[in-house]
């Protein structure tokens, strides 16, 4: 082999890879290594997703019949609260930033670790503590307020509102610390040569997400604290009984929770930016536009929270302003979609599992985003508010966007994280099931919503039964797809082939270290390249993957997968 490879050769046994360099339970439980913390988050987050997903299937099964089947309306309320709250606070918010982000941010940046490793670990344990607090509260007597804790119901219901709000408060701390850590890491830990505009777009997206986490989450903290004080001390700020104002609660809540929607989707967008470029083997189209649009989304996200409150008694003038601003936030999102599509144009698109998920993301996110405009327009939101149309819209964004992006990212970086290749065929099958199942579940809900089916109802009129049944069967297909995906990942852990350092041909820094990376990420300071320049990469077959070759050593670099056996 004439080329000089800077990446470590995979043939050598990696005794110092981060998975096995030290053993025992404590070496994981007390680890300060960002990669191990990332993996622990991954397991925890997927466990929460599993629980909340099962609850979703329970809800859909109950909705097979228009009348009561096996859940009382009260139980139905508790199950959807549990489903929503776990999905939002325990899964979607920490999924990509905390799990994938912790693993990837320092490696992609070329740093040894995040800026504050101990804060990172405490952030994980805050998550665990918050989750336990939260779940105990929810299961103890059954919280039935929905995940939004709207007053005055949350101040009058006998459910464990205080305990649940404290759980959210703790989870908020975890989220703030993760965001803070990433901002400081990206600002101060960039190695020489890693300028802002050489950073992979995933880092830009993570940076934007972290800004939101840091700025918005404290407001959720004080909201939850005031809500708890409302329940214990009857401070009356949100309680009409004491001339307080419930609409103010909604302002407080959505000042966090609308930006939180972008905490959920922005990292997914970052993942897709990586996937699109790597699996098309073509430089990302409009790098700066995608980077700036991430920041723009983060800033715009603070201007639009009122569109959740069009029907809750907000003043007309405020509704008008928020509606107009809502349309602005669609611009940076659309910029991203156009750039992803342009990236694929004339690229060498390989339809492997991560790319299939990335394409699914674009399809579903576009539907989710466009239906969002209907809800942002005042006149159409009035009839559609609190119907299945809203439910369907945010599932298209949260599941079709965040979850699919998360899955795509998992499959993309799975070889890097575990050192194992997965079965690509079954991965693609899982993606197909997810795509079909998801649309089968939620397309009927658009129809249901526009015909007037309100959300959060256990019973409905018999005319809606067919569409509801279609939706329920779709959810089974979706569930099956997710189980297949889980099976593929578990199978790869046991039977998977050893992964090369760079199986996909990515040019970002994480592909320069071995799979899985060594304890210190880089045995010697990495060479910082253009993150999306694929010219110096050469394919050496399935065993060896792609290798970075200094341009001076190769006369005619090939960008196509042409095996050149040495």
């Amino acid at each position, binding site marked *: 082999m004439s080329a000089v490879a800077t990446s470590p050769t995979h043939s050598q046994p990696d005794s*110092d890879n981060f998975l096995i*360099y*030290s053993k*025992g339970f*404590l*070496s994981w439980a*007390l*680890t*300060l*290594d960002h990669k191990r913390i990332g993996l622990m988050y991954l397991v925890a987050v997927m466990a929460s997703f599993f629980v909340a997903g099962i609850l979703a299937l329970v809800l859909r099964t109950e909705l097979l019949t228009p009348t009561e089947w096996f859940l009382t309306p009260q139980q139905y309320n508790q199950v959807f609260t549990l489903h929503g709250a776990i999905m939002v606070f325990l899964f979607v918010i920490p999924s990509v930033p905390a799990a994938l982000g912790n693993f990837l941010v320092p490696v992609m940046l070329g*740093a*040894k*670790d995040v*800026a*504050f*490793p101990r*804060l990172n670990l405490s952030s994980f344990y805050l998550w665990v503590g918050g989750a336990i607090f939260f779940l105990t509260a929810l299961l103890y007597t059954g919280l039935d307020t929905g995940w939004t804790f709207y007053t005055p119901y949350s101040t009058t219901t006998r459910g464990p509102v205080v305990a649940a709000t404290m759980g959210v408060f703790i989870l908020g701390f975890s989220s*703030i610390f993760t965001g*803070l*850590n990433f*901002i*400081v*890491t990206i*600002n*101060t*830990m960039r190695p020489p040569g890693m300028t802002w505009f050489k950073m992979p777009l995933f880092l830009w997206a993570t940076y934007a997400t972290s800004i939101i986490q*840091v*700025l*918005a*989450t*404290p*407001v959720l*903290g*004080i*909201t939850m*604290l*005031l809500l708890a*004080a409302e329940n214990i*001390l*009857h*401070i*009356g*700020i949100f*309680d009409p*009984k*004491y*001339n*307080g*104002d419930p609409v*103010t609660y909604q302002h*407080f809540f959505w000042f966090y929770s609308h930006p939180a929607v972008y905490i959920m989707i922005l990292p997914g967008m970052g993942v897709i930016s990586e996937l699109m470029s790597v699996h098309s083997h073509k430089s990302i189209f409009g790098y700066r536009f995608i980077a700036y649009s991430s920041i723009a989304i983060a800033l715009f996200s603070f201007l639009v929270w009122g569109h959740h409150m069009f029907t809750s008694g907000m003043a007309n003038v405020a509704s008008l302003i928020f509606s107009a601003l809502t349309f602005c936030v669609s611009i940076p999102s659309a910029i991203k979609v156009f750039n992803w599509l342009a990236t694929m144009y004339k690229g060498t698109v390989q339809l492997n599992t991560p790319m299939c998920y990335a394409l699914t993301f674009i399809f579903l996110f576009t539907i989710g985003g466009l239906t969002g405009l209907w809800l942002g327009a005042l006149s159409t939101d009035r009839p559609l508010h609190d119907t299945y149309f809203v439910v369907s819209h945010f599932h298209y964004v949260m599941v079709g966007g965040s979850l699919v992006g998360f899955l795509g990212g998992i499959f993309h970086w799975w070889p890097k994280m575990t050192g194992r290749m997965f079965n690509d065929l079954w991965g693609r099958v899982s993606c197909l099931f997810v795509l079909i199942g998801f649309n089968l579940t939620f397309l009927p809900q658009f129809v249901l919503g526009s015909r007037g089916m309100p959300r959060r109802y256990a019973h409905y009129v018999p005319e809606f039964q067919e569409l509801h049944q279609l939706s329920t069967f779709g959810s089974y297909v979706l569930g099956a797809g997710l189980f297949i995906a889980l099976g593929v990942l578990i199978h790869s852990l046991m039977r998977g082939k050893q992964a090369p350092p760079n199986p996909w041909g990515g040019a970002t820094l994480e592909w320069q270290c071995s799979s899985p990376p060594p*304890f*210190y990420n880089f045995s*010697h*300071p990495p060479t910082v390249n253009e993150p999306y320049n694929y010219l110096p990469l050469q394919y050496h077959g399935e065993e060896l993957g792609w290798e970075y070759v200094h341009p001076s050593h190769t006369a005619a670099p090939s960008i196509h997968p042409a095996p050149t056996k040495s």
Partner: protein
Amino acid sequence: MANDTATLDPAHAHGEHADGHGAHAHMPFQAHHFDDPEQQFDAGKLGMWIFLVTEVLFFSGMFCAYALYRSLHPEVWTFASQFLNEMLGAFNTGVLLFSSLTMAWGVRCAQLRQRTGLVICLAITLGCAAMFLGIKAVEYTHKWDMGLLPAGFYESQYLPGAHHTGLSSWLVRLCIIPGVLTVGFALWYLVTLIKGQKRHSEIAGPMLVTGLCFFLGAYLGIVIQSFEESSHGTISHDSHVAAGVDAGGHSDEPASRSPGDPLPEEIDQAGGAGLFFSIYYCMTGVHAIHILGGMVVLTWLLVRATKDQFNEQYFGPVDYVGLYWHLVDLIWIYLFPLLYLIK
């Protein structure tokens, strides 16, 4: 390559892994993943500023509630603010400002590696914090006795009721924990003196002073409070006069009141003044919790300062805690005029 102890405390153990550290490879408190002490300091400082941003936004929720209800019902604010003791508030402002001065001085001492100076500065800062809380305890308990409570428990000031005089039983109860701590610190200080453990007595001494400062603050609070009351008559009586209403009814209303204004009785109830006190307790209570948190980290700094761990290359922790402490001061700078000085 790396062992478990190494993962537990990278600040101490990872020096040998750090390649490219050059001359700074043996800095005792440099974490393994930073290139040099300055990068570590910058990272910590940026992190602290971002944390302060979250604190600002955290408090903004309560400032928002304040602005909302004050702008909607200014007369309630004017009425309820008379129950707050302006002298105590101003005195507490001074105490906090002085603690900020000593904190900033402490940072200077750490940067110049003046160990004794740092210990003294931290001790004074802790003492001021305790004094602040002592005065706050007097203020709080006095209001609890008068029934000036959050909306749900608010008791109208016009209705006959036994207003408490003399030492508040609430204050006694609030003093139990600081009392026990002070006695404990005193015993510890004696033990260290007898055993001749110099470094331990340098920790126990400031802690004892801190405990005593709480009681000094409480004493000063009571003195100022009684001075105010003797110069204006009792607060409860005063309020009737101020509102122009005697206990029997509302026959002689002040001439300045325009017909559209709500009657004092409409203000003096849970949904009026009660809401003011809700917001008052939320804002000052959360602020007091921040003071308590600050005292915990200041104690941690004190322990580290006695070990002489800070120098011109490594003074980050003192600086970061200082930033936090000044922010707490900053919030009080706004709370004082907004709550106490409404006329």
